[in-house]
């Protein structure tokens, strides 16, 4: 049994080495495809961080009526602080508003008008964890129902738009990923096809001597694993060192998943086995 297995493995390697040019081209193609795929994976992995970054900046501002009683709004702030989707609040009183105005526009509004028309407001920061736009919408709706609330400046929709764009980009990435997977499938399948055509005599002799379908297939499975393995190892190393260099050069912090190697190599082998199996089914008329 061990001798038989050793024979099959040796046949797989022989097949790989005999079709040197086809093997080389197949490995190169897998390398290119999985380098693109790996890069997309890294980009996709970091997209989540980008969304988190936007969300961490997410806040809204509640402007109160002119005549609101201090006790009322302090109690209101306390209520807000107890809400689990709110991380913190900041009261911006009329004086602070005036100083912000001066900072932003360079004019002293009190001096200009003779009184301070700026409203009292409360800045509300949303908790990053368990972030849900629907909950934020509900919260804003409930805040709006208070009599002493004049207006709410709500920038969540902008972030929502940004997220929509990111999601569109992810969708386009996925389409691209599917195209790359299909291309890899075709390349491996055609290379195995070529290999089987080249070794038709060998396959016929195996068949006439009583080899089972699996026995005939195993060397070609091994051959496809070798294509996938070499192509994907090179592509993993390329992707990893490309992003490390990119980070160093631009001073960025693009994160690389610890299991990137497993994704790239595992996925490549899966595609290799699947495509070679389909190719063998066609060739062996199964």
């Amino acid at each position: 049994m061990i001798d038989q297995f050793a024979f099959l493995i040796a046949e797989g390697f022989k097949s790989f080495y005999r079709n040197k040019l086809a093997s080389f081209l197949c490995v190169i193609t897998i390398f290119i495809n999985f380098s693109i795929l790996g890069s997309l994976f890294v980009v996709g992995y970091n997209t989540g961080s980008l969304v988190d970054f936007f969300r961490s900046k997410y806040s809204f501002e509640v402007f109160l009526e002119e005549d609101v009683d201090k006790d009322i709004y302090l109690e209101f702030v306390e209520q807000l602080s107890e809400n689990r989707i709110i991380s913190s609040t900041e009261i911006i009183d009329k004086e602070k508003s005036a100083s912000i105005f001066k900072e932003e526009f360079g004019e002293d509004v009190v001096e200009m008008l003779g009184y301070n028309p700026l409203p009292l407001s409360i800045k509300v920061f949303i908790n990053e964890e368990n972030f849900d736009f629907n909950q934020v919408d509900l919260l804003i709706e409930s805040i709006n129902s208070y009599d002493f609330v004049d207006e709410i400046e709500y920038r969540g929709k902008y972030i929502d738009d940004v997220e929509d764009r990111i999601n569109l980009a992810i969708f386009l990435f996925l389409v691209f990923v599917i195209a790359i997977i299909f291309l890899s499938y075709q390349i491996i399948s055609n290379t195995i096809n070529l290999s089987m055509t080249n070794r038709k005599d060998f396959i016929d002799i195996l068949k006439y001597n009583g080899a089972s379908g699996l026995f005939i297939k195993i060397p070609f499975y091994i051959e496809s694993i070798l294509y996938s393995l070499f192509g994907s190892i090179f592509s993993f190393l390329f992707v990893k060192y490309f992003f490390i260099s990119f980070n160093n050069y631009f001073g960025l912090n693009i994160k690389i998943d610890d299991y990137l190697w497993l994704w790239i190599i595992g996925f490549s082998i899966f595609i290799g086995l699947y495509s070679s199996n389909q190719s063998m089914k066609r060739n062996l008329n199964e």
Partner: protein
Amino acid sequence: MVDFKNISYSYSKESGIYDIDLSVKDGEFCFLVGPTGSGKTSLLKMIYFDILPSEGELDVLGYNFKKTKRAKIHKLRKKIGVIFQDYKLLQQRTVYENIALPLHINGVGRKKIKDNVEEALELADLLDYQNKYPNQLSGGEQQRVCIARAIVKNPELILADEPTGNLDPTAAHKILRILEQINKEGTTVVMATHNYKLISDRDYRIIELKEGSLVSS
């Protein structure tokens, strides 16, 4: 061992084999004769289920063609050694490697492979050629390699399809003598040939085909 009952198979309107009734007994040596296109190769291919009849009943070594699933045909083939007119040897492998191939398929261990291959090489008078490649051998020698490959797994049945077709009379007689020796050791042999001269002085059963039909058996 081999039972054909009203077997028919057609490639096209004009060619095929028709209504064959035939049995080959255990330990028998028989010749399958007839002109080119008479259906000899088709009949042999049916025995190892390479082509399957469109009508009739066929049993080979206990395998019925209707009851045997496609995925199980290899089990029957393990019991049959096939010798081809065009040798079907792997040119990039040595004589030894070519002969050892069926044993690898059967999962035989390395030590036993060595013993069996040497035995087959001796029977086929090829001991001095084991490290040579097929393209370094004459036609007769290549055919002997093919015979050694067929017998190395000790099959119950040997099917030889025109094994002397490409050989000179001396080489052809040598091949025939080897097949006779294999038969004497108990293996059933069915040999297709159109060389009547070669078999005329042998006292074996002759099955004659003409245009796909059985003329005599």
